[in-house]
């Protein structure tokens, strides 16, 4: 993929998009929902790959950044009466702003200190919703984007429409990120990741590069949060827990961390693992204590085995390490 021009990549995105969207007519609602879920996870994982894989910063708080994007979109719709595509853009922009502020603090921190700070953010931020009435408290705020527009066809189910929206957004984001990473910004981030001292010596403003990476990553996470809110139909503190942040980092590692294309694989795995462990558990059976905890056991084991045996994510073609 390295050698393609932006235009070629654009054409590729269009083709992939067309195939996927045509395919959506042939899959059932459940798969359409999962497809939308995968697209959202892929965007969210890409935001972590951008941060961790390209600029070397670790975040355990991307769930909170998604919450910021999600809440911003919903508030834009409810209070500013914006149509939802604009609400998504607001979510992305507010995500970027939050990322910029966090990035300024984060640029000074390394490794585990940043991990700890973002972890505290992931735990602390969603509980703020209970503090401010405008955020709707524990039951959250509903986000209604309505059904598919009439011009697109009559028998267009809700989930199929979400699938379209999410896949389109994912393709656009991947196209943008790919192009961005092949510019000098991408090269700078890679330089900062592999050797911050050398990068600084060669005239790169390391702090600025890191803040920019954090801003961009948060913008993408904000968009993912907006789409997540659309899929759930609401934003609520319980929807953006620490578990979500952990899930995203897990997806990023399954994706290989420095591999943008791997994000999609990571997203598929994230959606597949609960389903897989659920069906294995259903087959094994047992007492209620056992069956309710079996999926957790299987997920844990799968996660450990995956990290042990494929720690660098999937082996994708076209990639040199």
């Amino acid at each position: 993929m390295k050698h393609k021009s932006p235009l070629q990549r654009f054409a590729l995105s269009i083709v992939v998009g067309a195939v996927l969207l045509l395919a959506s007519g042939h899959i059932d609602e459940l798969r359409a929902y999962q497809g939308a879920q995968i697209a959202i996870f892929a965007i969210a994982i890409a935001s972590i790959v951008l941060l961790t894989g390209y600029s070397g910063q670790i975040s355990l708080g991307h769930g909170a950044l998604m919450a910021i994007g999600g809440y911003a979109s919903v508030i834009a719709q409810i209070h500013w009466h914006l149509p939802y595509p604009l609400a998504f853009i607001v979510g992305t922009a507010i995500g970027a702003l939050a990322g910029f502020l966090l990035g300024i603090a984060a640029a000074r921190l390394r490794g585990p200190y940043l991990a700890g700070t973002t972890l505290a953010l992931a735990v602390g931020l969603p509980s703020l919703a209970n503090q401010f009435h405008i955020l709707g408290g524990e039951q959250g705020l509903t986000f209604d984007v309505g059904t598919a527009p009439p011009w697109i066809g009559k028998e267009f189910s809700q989930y199929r429409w979400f699938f379209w929206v999410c896949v389109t957004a994912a393709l656009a984001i991947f196209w943008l990120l790919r192009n961005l990473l092949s510019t000098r910004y991408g090269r700078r981030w890679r330089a900062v990741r592999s050797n911050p001292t050398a990068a600084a010596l060669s005239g790169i403003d390391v702090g600025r590069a890191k803040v920019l990476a954090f801003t961009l990553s948060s913008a993408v996470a904000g968009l993912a949060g907006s789409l997540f809110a659309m899929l759930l139909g609401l934003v609520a503190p319980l929807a953006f827990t620490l578990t979500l942040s952990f899930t995203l980092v897990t997806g990023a590692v399954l994706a290989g961390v420095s591999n943008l294309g791997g994000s999609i694989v990571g997203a598929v795995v994230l959606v597949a693992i609960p389903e897989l462990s659920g069906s294995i558990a259903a087959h094994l059976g047992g007492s209620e204590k056992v069956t309710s905890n079996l999926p957790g056991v299987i997920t844990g084991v799968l996660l450990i085995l995956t990290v042990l045996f494929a720690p660098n994510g999937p082996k994708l073609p076209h990639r040199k390490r």
Partner: protein
Amino acid sequence: MTIFLNTILIGLNSGAIYSLMSLALVLVWRSTRVVNFAAAGQAILSTYLGYEAMNRFHNYWLSLPVAVIAGALISALVEALVMRPLAKRTKGTPVEAIAPVIATLGVLGLIRSLAGMIWGNTFLQYTSPLSSMGFKIGHTTIPFSPQNAAIVIGSVVVMAIFAAIFKFTRLGLSLRAASFQPEISRLSGVRVDRMRTIGWAFAGAAGAVAGALVTPTMFLSPNSLDLLLVTGFVAAVIGGLESLVGAVVGGLVLGLGFAFILQYIGSSIIFSAAFVILIAVLLIRPQGIFGARSSREA
């Protein structure tokens, strides 16, 4: 004034527990440069085993060593079976720093689910013979009971034992050397792999003490130590991750900080407060209060 003193006592008590969990995380960080999210899982499993021991022996004090030994063994097993092979596989790759974190999350989920499978997702009572009634000073009862005293004394004893081991024994020197400079240590004859496992075992023991001491003041469920993991980690980061003293100070800062915020501002902002305390400390000292002078990469 009474309220002020009470708040300090409450903060001291929770600070002691945070410190122990923070210590468990710092010990692992020092020995293998891994943030061990499985610490809460290991502690919960050792606490359940302590609970089993108490049901068998009908004696809390006999169940404590069982929990501690179990905690040490569980932690050593996690290191030897998962973390060591993983470290060898990821050495020099981009996921070197973050893959172990994911592995520990996997272990956390696995252990919690196993505990739910064995003991059920219910609240169990792991009780201590010590009274939970607050001490009486004159006519007022202070919010500090013999069990709270056991928590604080237990934490202090554990810290003192670890400090003595690290400072005065050859094992302690080997552990420190192995964590600072593994290669030089190996060339000096230190079995670094073994030191890593021992470091994890010590951490497991510290976590087990935390679990076994705090659980009698609340209840036991597969998730009952989750929150402690977060506070322990925040405390460890505040303290600087490297230093045992830092772990204790971080725990106390957070414990007292929470107590005063709860008392004077209100509880609903407590987790946002953790973030604010952390940011405030790190903005002044990005490597934590007792962080290493020469910063090391994660």
